[in-house]
């Protein structure tokens, strides 16, 4: 049977949000790990025809009948889109398992091992996370791994790693039970935020001192894990939780490499900014990805440190996949200044070493990277200077002299009003002053350069 003969359908649990500004439609499937897809309204109209099972050509013909479009041209244009949609499970074979809507495997109040489920955290097609509670009142997380292909290995690695790392910077494994498609783990609750976010202060800015402390705490945690023969293999900010006191816990050991555990080489991630150059090169050329080793993990940790310190990736990876893999394999890290952070030459130098393309040029261990960074961080970042920035007194005077009872208001023409609006806006950004914000808007409208009314939108 060819693809042309197969019946496809749009699963019932696909959600669509229409962009009121553009006419695009954002389509996602509940519980899917595939990011939401943006479709043109025309492509969405075609996709909606699959609410009833149809062949690809049948749907295109029906679409052309209702729109008057040319069937051949439409099929040529639509076919790649439809194939891409099958890959993202937005279009699935009619009657297959993939077409079934996602149903949670557990429910609130249910007993799972020693835990009682109290709230849903996340339900995906291949896994679930639930808040739970033990009989003594201790909060726990119930983690379900459920994937016929990879689930059993993910479960075994996670359970094995957590047992080996017991007492370390990881959740405590309270209970576990293997199943045919994975298994269930009950883990102690970890109170924390992704480490990259935890580096933000009360006003949402990234402080150098807090950020470097979190980097060092993270590297300490990894050094402890490595010392027990475990490589995480999944280094990214979401897998490192930091509490408000700066304590760090590592989570998700499903693809960990565990020495002498008889589990064989760990599977490798297929992308992401923490990918090391050798893996990126192999992926780019369709070759087997090298096994995870400590030099690859040091590279990932240097990339992570760059992100914690700057809030940005060490490379601009907003590229097509091949180009992104090539960038990881060949390009040096960008300077902090390129991502809007103060220059910090000593720290940037240490990170450049950790991000060296040649594994032999990197720090040998996570502990070495940590020690090098701790030393480098004693040199403070270079101060940023902005020659155009007003002093505090000048900013106050500008705001005070810009109200409607001042001479400036009486005399200004459109050009000078625009200049004043810009200056007030700069003060508003620098100081957070509501007064400067309101006056900047007033002068902008006065200058006639800004149709404030155009920006009215969703209700407040």
């Amino acid at each position, binding site marked *: 049977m060819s693809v042309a003969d197969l019946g496809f359908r749009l699963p019932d649990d696909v959600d669509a949000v229409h962009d009121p500004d553009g006419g695009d439609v954002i389509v996602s499937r509940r519980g899917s790990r595939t990011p939401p897809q943006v479709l043109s309204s025309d492509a969405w109209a075609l996709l909606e025809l699959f609410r009833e099972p149809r062949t690809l050509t049948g749907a295109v013909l029906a679409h052309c009948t209702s729109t008057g479009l040319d069937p051949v041209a439409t099929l040529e244009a639509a076919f790649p889109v439809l194939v891409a949609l099958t890959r993202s499970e937005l279009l699935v074979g009619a009657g297959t398992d993939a077409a079934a809507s996602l149903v949670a495997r557990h429910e609130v109040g249910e007993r799972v091992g020693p835990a009682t489920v109290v709230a849903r955290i996340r339900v995906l097609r291949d896994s679930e996370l639930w808040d739970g509670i033990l009989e003594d009142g201790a909060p726990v997380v119930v983690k379900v791994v459920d994937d016929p292909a990879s689930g059993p290995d993910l479960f075994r690695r996670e359970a094995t790693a957590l047992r080996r790392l017991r007492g370390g910077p990881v959740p405590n494994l309270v209970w576990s039970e293997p199943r045919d498609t994975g298994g269930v783990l009950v883990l102690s609750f970890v109170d924390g935020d992704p480490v990259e976010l935890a580096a933000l202060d009360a006003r*949402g800015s990234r402080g150098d001192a807090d950020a470097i402390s979190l980097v060092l705490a993270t590297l300490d945690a990894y050094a402890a894990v490595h010392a027990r023969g475990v490589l995480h293999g999944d280094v990214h900010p979401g897998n490192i939780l930091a509490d408000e006191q700066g304590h760090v816990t590592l989570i998700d050991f499903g693809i960990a490499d565990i020495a002498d555990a008889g589990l064989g080489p760990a599977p490798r991630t297929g992308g992401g900014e923490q990918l090391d150059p050798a893996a990126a090169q192999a992926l780019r050329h369709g070759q087997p990805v090298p096994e995870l080793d400590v030099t690859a993990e040091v590279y990932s940790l240097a990339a992570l440190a760059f992100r914690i310190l700057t809030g940005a990736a060490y490379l601009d990876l907003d590229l097509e996949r091949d180009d992104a893999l090539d960038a990881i394999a060949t390009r040096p890290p960008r300077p902090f200044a390129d991502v809007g952070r103060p220059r910090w030459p000593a720290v940037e130098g240490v990170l450049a070493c950790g991000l060296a393309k040649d594994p032999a040029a990197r720090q040998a261990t996570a502990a070495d990277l940590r020690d090098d960074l701790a030393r480098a961080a004693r040199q403070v970042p270079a101060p940023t200077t902005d020659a155009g920035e007003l002093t505090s007194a000048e900013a106050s005077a500008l705001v005070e002299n810009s109200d409607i009872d001042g001479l400036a208001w009486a005399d200004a023409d459109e050009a000078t009003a625009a200049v004043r609006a810009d200056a007030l806006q700069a003060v508003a950004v620098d100081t957070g002053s*509501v007064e400067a*914000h309101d006056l900047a808007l007033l002068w902008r*409208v006065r200058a006639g350069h800004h149709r404030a*009314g155009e920006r009215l939108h969703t209700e407040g």
Partner: protein
Amino acid sequence: MPNPAGERLARLSRVATIRAAALTGRLGPDQHGPDPHGASDLAAVLYRAGGCAPSREIDARWPQLLLRRAERPVRAALSGHTRSATAAWMSWTRTDADPSQLVHKIYVSPGLAAMAEALTTTFAVAIDLGVPAWKVGADVAGLHRADKIVLYLPTGEAADRAASALAEVLNHIGPQGVPFTGQVGATGIVSRGIDHDGTSWRALVCRSLADALVAARAVAGPTAPPTDVADLAYERLADLGFDVTTWRPQQPPHPTPQPQPQPMTTGAVR
């Protein structure tokens, strides 16, 4: 400009009105085409009053962090709520709530430095009091609006009770404050509004006030001081049933303002 006397939000509203009054007559017909007197621009100026500008250093993911921390202590209780997102707002709605009945609004407007504490407290109070729905600005720009946190209740009495409770527990936090809303408590961090026929309270007030300012300028003449224009506009709004002293919401303002040539779509402004 000297600050008028009175409660904080009433003062902010009065200052914003006088400034908008100063704009009237400067927004000419050639500049504004289908909106010949610039009332839409005036409405937008009034609507955006009380906001602030994000600093360059703010991380775009800060709202995520704040919401994680606000949700965490009440996560189990939130399982009875639907969490939804638009580009501008994150919303929580109790699964048994009827959104069409939730027209009584409470605004919570803390200064930025206290956002984390104010959000966590607001979530806890909302859960304790069984507030059916609330929303929070979903991005950095949204957290810099004056009306960055909005709670919805089905009756004025319930909204007044919840607003008083919030004002008491948030009393120590520095406010940003939402102009053209009815202040609850001493500081202005909490205030009240009420939506009408699908139009938000502030959109209704600001559009009505903008039209009144244009009309008042026409009556008072091009050289009249902005304060006189503002006073005339307030008289017109009072005739429509608005409380122009405290901006406490009436239900409904009477008579209902006439439809405008360019009505604001239930519109907030960034």
